[in-house]
């Protein structure tokens, strides 16, 4: 279904640890959204000097209610654009385009699923956990971050999971270490069929490597900086191996953001591998 371009009104702005959760009216968006979709938001109004839209994983949607549909996103402040966004107040209008991208693929049969979230990369996993459980899947969640305050929604996601394992680099909450330090064990214990992951690229690379080595199917939602989010600017590319075995620079906004973990050339992200289709032969 085609994405919508709509004006949404801010319903609520609330702090969640280091992050800010924005609830926006978004008529029509909820019905179209599946776990893993994202949306983008115009920054600074019509005459803004910041031209590029900011992209966010869709955290929650509501299709009914007094507002005729709403959507929640989780914002971490990284610069002027995201700062402007968290400074919005109730009743402010925002330009929203979404849902965008390819969502997570759900198993056809009940399966054992591990969901791995790094930092606020847990945001799209809430909807995913619900959808998986509705299909009779077992859901185990691993949430990791550098420190406790950089985790998002761990209490809430526990409700949708058979088990929740928290890791922090500094040991401020849960197991001291990284999500990958506990992943192997949980794959074994739960006899996992699928690993879903969302978070920083380094974490995704490590998660995909472990899953692939264990023969477990993995799906990773990548974080590439985007300009348009709709497939026209060719900014957000990364090297991905196609069904034909050929590597191409593909757009994470329309061919992703969810990719098979065994198809992304993680160690080559940020480069054009020499065997990529159309890679430069000499100077470029």
């Amino acid at each position, binding site marked *: 279904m*085609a*994405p919508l*371009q709509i004006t949404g009104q801010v319903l609520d702005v609330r702090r969640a640890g280091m992050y800010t959760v924005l609830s926006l009216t978004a008529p029509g968006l909820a019905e179209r959204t599946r776990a893993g979709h994202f949306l983008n938001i*115009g920054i600074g109004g019509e005459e*803004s*000097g*910041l*031209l*590029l*839209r900011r992209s966010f994983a869709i955290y929650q949607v509501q299709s009914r209610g007094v507002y005729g549909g709403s959507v929640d996103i989780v914002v971490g402040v990284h610069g002027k*654009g995201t700062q402007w966004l968290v400074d919005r107040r109730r009743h402010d209008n925002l*330009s929203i*385009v979404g849902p965008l991208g390819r969502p997570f693929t759900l198993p056809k049969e009940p399966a054992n699923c591990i969901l791995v979230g790094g930092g606020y990369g847990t945001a799209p996993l809430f909807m995913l956990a619900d959808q998986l459980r509705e299909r009779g899947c077992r859901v185990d969640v691993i949430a990791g971050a550098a420190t406790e305050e950089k985790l998002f929604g761990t209490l809430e996601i526990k409700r949708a999971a058979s088990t929740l394992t928290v890791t922090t680099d500094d040991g401020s909450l849960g197991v001291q270490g990284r999500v990958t330090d506990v992943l192997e064990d949980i794959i074994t214990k739960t006899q996992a069929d699928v690993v879903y992951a969302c978070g920083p690229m380094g974490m995704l690379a490590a998660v995909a490597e472990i899953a692939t080595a264990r023969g477990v199917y993995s799906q990773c939602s990548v974080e*590439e*900086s985007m*300009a*348009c989010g*709709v*497939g*026209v*600017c*060719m*900014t*957000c*590319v*990364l090297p991905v191996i196609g069904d034909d075995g050929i590597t*191409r*620079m593909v757009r994470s906004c*329309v061919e992703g953001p969810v990719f098979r973990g065994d198809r992304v050339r993680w160690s080559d*992200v*940020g*480069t*054009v591998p020499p065997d*990529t*289709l*159309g*890679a*430069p032969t*000499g*100077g*470029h």
Partner: protein
Amino acid sequence: MSRALITSGPIDPTVNLPAVDMSTSLGYFETPAPVFTASGCAAAGKELDQFFDITQLGGIVTKSVMMNARSGRATPRMAETPSGMLNSIGLQGPGIDSFIENDLAWLRQRGARTVVSIAGGSVEEYGKLAAKLRTVDGISAIEVNISCPNVEDRGQVFACDPNSSAQVIQAVRRNSDTKIPIIAKLSPDVTSIVSIAQAVERAGADAVAVINTTLGMVINLETMRPALGGITGGLSGPAIRPMAVRCVWQIHQALPQLPILGMGGIRNGEDALQFILAGASAVSVGTVTFHDPSAPIRVQQELEIALAQRGFATLREAIGFAHRGPDVAVIEEEQE
């Protein structure tokens, strides 16, 4: 006379505005509407067609295509700048054969007017691209992106030298159907854009597209290295609009018969009107599409309003209107 008179001064937004004849032409390419997408900002139209009816635009200018598939450059490919952005995509594309088979076939089936943008690393490559396009239907015009490094001339950009620019246009003209207009896309990174425009006109260009991005650079203060994988990149967006309007003005002044497709930071209908008044026959909306995927059609609607508000009955009579002599006064109030 029954037609409305050109007016200046404050605009009354409550007045019911008459429809404006928005038809225009670029050489012998006649189009009912004056707003185009800009090459590299609309892929091949399909993605934007989700947001508005692309057949309502003057036309789709496709991303510059080369002979062979091309991966483009490493990331980061983009950096946001004040009222603009830098890009170093590196002409990622499928190659001309795949483009014709997939993208062009879709555009033709969709019924969109299509301007195919081509890019080459040598004069010969441009000629070959034109010859390929000669075999297919459904092309309204060819845009020649000459802002590419010439691999046969130490990587010197074609668009920065009048002779190289002319050679490319001659090669495309020789290999193209004579009924297909050729639009040369010029770089602003030259001492005299008029001399380049003169060179391509003499070489057989039917129109010029003005302007391409201008070369820029950003240093990332965290890594203390260039922000872009390609080190330098093309600057676009409203930040370069005054430069673009100046280029259109200079070319129209020197070569009033040469049609201009104006572009550079157009964000709304009034921005577009500046280009028309400076001498552009049509305009392209580029970078602002990344900010608002409906921008091309919105700008076209706003441009019609902006023309009507000033009493223009046709777009054509506004082309180059800012060049009129002091003896042509605008009428302050409508008269009987």
